[in-house]
């Protein structure tokens, strides 16, 4: 199965803002979030986008 235009993962430093849905990765700080986002980007073959509130999402296009 090929998922497209779908949020595959959410990486955030403020876990309290997330309610269900995609797999969420809670990180201690911005540095860690960036590293996790980079790893997930490579693994999931998606693009890591940054939202206005500093949250990263991995989306497959």
């Amino acid at each position: 199965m090929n998922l497209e235009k779908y949020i595959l993962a959410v990486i955030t430093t403020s876990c309290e803002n997330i309610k269900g849905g995609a797999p969420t990765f809670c990180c201690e700080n911005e540095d860690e979030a960036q590293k996790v986002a980079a790893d997930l980007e490579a693994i999931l073959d998606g693009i890591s986008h940054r939202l206005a509130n500093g949250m990263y999402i991995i989306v497959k296009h």
Partner: protein
Amino acid sequence: MNEYTYPVIFGITIGTLARLYMLKTDYRQYPTYPHGKVINVALGFIAASLGTVAVPSFMEENFTAVTFLALAASQFREVRNMERNTLSELDQYELVPRGKTYIEGIAIVFEGRNYLVIFASFISTLLYLAFNIWAGILGAIGALLLAKSLMSGKQLKHIVNIKKAELSFDGPGLYVDNIYIMNIGLPERQKEILKYGMGFILEPKDFNVRATIGHLGQRQAILHDASVSLGVFRDSGTPALVPLIKRDLDDGRIGVFILPQVQDVAKAIAVIERVPVLENAFRLPTESDANQKGSELD
């Protein structure tokens, strides 16, 4: 040997030569060397034979020969299907795909060239039989000139002005000039993009062009040609490094973002200038009755 032998050999030779003349392997790597060429030359030979033998058949009042031409038409439609299927299958493995519109354009060209071969053979054989070999040669030259003029489609430089533009980031948003391209989240990727990326703005020369360059298939063709000629800084599994084109909705300009391996602006502009205007993407909105009777489009 009879009175038709030499004219028929002449017609077939002219038709096959016409196909060879129209067969070019260029940066698109198509037809591929050498077997793709053999297929096309062989089909050209068959087309030439059909075009040629139609003439003596008519002269002998054997009008059922025209059904062979109908058969030829269905055969060459099959050629078009074959080209389309092959290219569509292969397109999945391209780092920057050609896109369906470009593929359909190539398939049409292959079908069309076989008809030009039939035409060249038919005309040259007819003139040979009606007058003499010199008339046949003149007819062949005429047919080749016609083929040449039909082969040379428009290129992007005829319809747009191309300018280099700066790439910039506003937060995670990547911009070419003031045209938003995409959201790149990771600072690492942003650095790569600023290092290897190149931006261009294509400004339409008139109103008709807006629809043509806005066509997704035409845009994909630009990206494909630029990536083939200049190399592309990406691999499978790096979707963030994909070249993209987006439109400015206000004035129809398009912003081209590419990641070439050859960092040469003049060469990149030359490559984009020579991208063919795809006949399937070409639009002429000013030709519509509604637009001609209503207010003029700028």
